[in-house]
């Protein structure tokens, strides 16, 4: 997969209450949740986002609650990929299950600046800083997750299994 977009830089330990506060968890509609994406940082945070933009965050992005509403809110706001130093584990599973791409970069996230444009090629494992043309390599997805994402995510995987088992 390839992605290109403007960076919104965030810090360490962005928790799921920041991504989508609990008071908005009375729906699972992506568009509705998307309108409140990052409302735990600032109520109008999402106003700065245009479709295709990319969040670049620090350590432990998505920590806290298991709410799948968090990746759904990010997708609902029009963003399809998040780059971070590292991700919290429940968020990590939820994102791939929902088709939100995650790129774990480690300390190299520090080389990406707020507002700049970046391009990502997941097959090549390369992130490019568009202004300078410099690249950052990242490890490709683990085989199991790669197959899950390529197969269309967890919903498609289960659908396929149920169809074959006749359950």
């Amino acid at each position, binding site marked *: 997969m390839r992605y290109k977009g403007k960076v919104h830089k965030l810090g360490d330990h962005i928790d799921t*209450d920041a991504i989508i506060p609990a008071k908005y968890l*009375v729906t699972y509609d992506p568009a509705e949740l998307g309108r409140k994406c990052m409302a735990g940082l600032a109520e109008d945070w999402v106003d700065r986002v245009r479709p295709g933009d990319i969040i670049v965050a620090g350590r*432990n992005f998505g920590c806290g609650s298991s*709410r799948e509403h968090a990746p759904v809110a990010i997708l609902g706001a029009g963003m399809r990929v998040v780059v971070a130093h590292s991700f*919290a*584990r429940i968020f990590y599973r*939820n994102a791939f299950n929902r088709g939100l791409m995650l790129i774990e970069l480690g300390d190299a996230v520090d080389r990406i600046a707020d507002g700049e444009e970046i391009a990502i090629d997941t097959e090549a494992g390369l992130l490019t800083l568009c202004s300078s043309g410099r690249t950052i390599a990242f490890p490709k997805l*683990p085989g199991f997750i790669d197959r899950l994402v390529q197969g269309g995510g*967890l919903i498609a995987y*289960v659908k396929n299994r149920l169809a074959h088992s006749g359950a």
Partner: protein
Amino acid sequence: MRMTLAQKILQRHTAEEIREDGQIVNCKVSLVLANDVTAPMAISSMLDMGAERVFDRDRIALVMDHFTPQKDIASAMQVKFVREFARKHQITHYYEGGNCGVEHALLPELGLVGPGDVVVGADSHTCTYGGLGAFATGLGSTDVAAAMALGETWFKVPPSIKVTFNGSLPEWVTGKDLVLWLIGEIGVDGALYKALEFHGPVVENLSVESRMSIANMAIEAGGKCGLFAADRKTLDYAVAAGRKGDREIAADPGAAYEREISFDVSALTPLVACPHLPENVCPVTEVKDVSIQQAVIGSCTNGRISDLREAAAVLKGRRVDPQVRCIVLPATPNIWKQALAEGLIDIFMDSGCIVGPATCGPCLGGHMGILADGERAIATTNRNFRGRMGSLESEVYLSNPAVAAASAVAGHIIHPAEI
């Protein structure tokens, strides 16, 4: 292979041979859990999967505990959606209304989770059941939907961190303080993707309830689970909860750990986690002149009967500061009745507390105690992220029940020995 507790429990639930950490294995699950916030999305995912039935109607628990009693029309619609699903699929363990409690207090009490189980729940504090010797972890709604349909899920076998507590617990220091100490020590991502495994004489002497308070906050260190061996005490708890056939289970001597942490607790004092991260931990005595407007005693971390006893012991014969609303939420109906029978409810009411129903309510800023701009709370809950309990301009300090109760009396954060 000498196995950690995490490896050992997973091995019992998978046909694959576990050879190393990081290996991905498919496991049969003992119980699948979701609540009123996460179940609607799980049901929606299940429908998208084309799953027409659940794997086992006796092994799914749907607990309507977060925004209940239904706080508004939207949350009532969510609960209604789940209730109709539960009826259609004849889900045995559907809880709403008078039989409902905070899920991670309720399910152990009902004997629905126990030693050696693999439990997945669409709630991050599912790790609580590690206190009973269960491999239990939080997942999102779609993962839980898959588990509801298939009765299995995949796990990456986690590396384990062995935490040994030595010495003896001083007065006023509880399981909550031990887990806050650990989170302060290793940080909110210190156990990311890993299992925490608790050992040592202090742990052996802890009550099962206290062990659950510790396991509950494994996620606050990023952990996949927080595990305790199931010993005689655990089995007694399981039998009292109506379970049969459980056995003791422990890690093999000589199992390989990624990291080992030992700590002598004998000089520990009660701790608080300061805003806005659970790792911002310091002794309560170092927090000076911090006034509070709210105290919350309850939640899946500290809403059990032993917690209420600790709070009541401090509140007995004292008055909550008039500037403070002290909200006590016994975590299940049984705990409520027990507190009533023991006279604890009288103590809370006489001291000026608000005693409410069993709900997660204020812990996640849902309802029943929301903070305004500039307000500050001390809570026996598990998270103090910015805005967690209400306004983005409010603050939450986390503590054990005695510290929360003492602070409610003083009107500011204080060590219970100082009031």
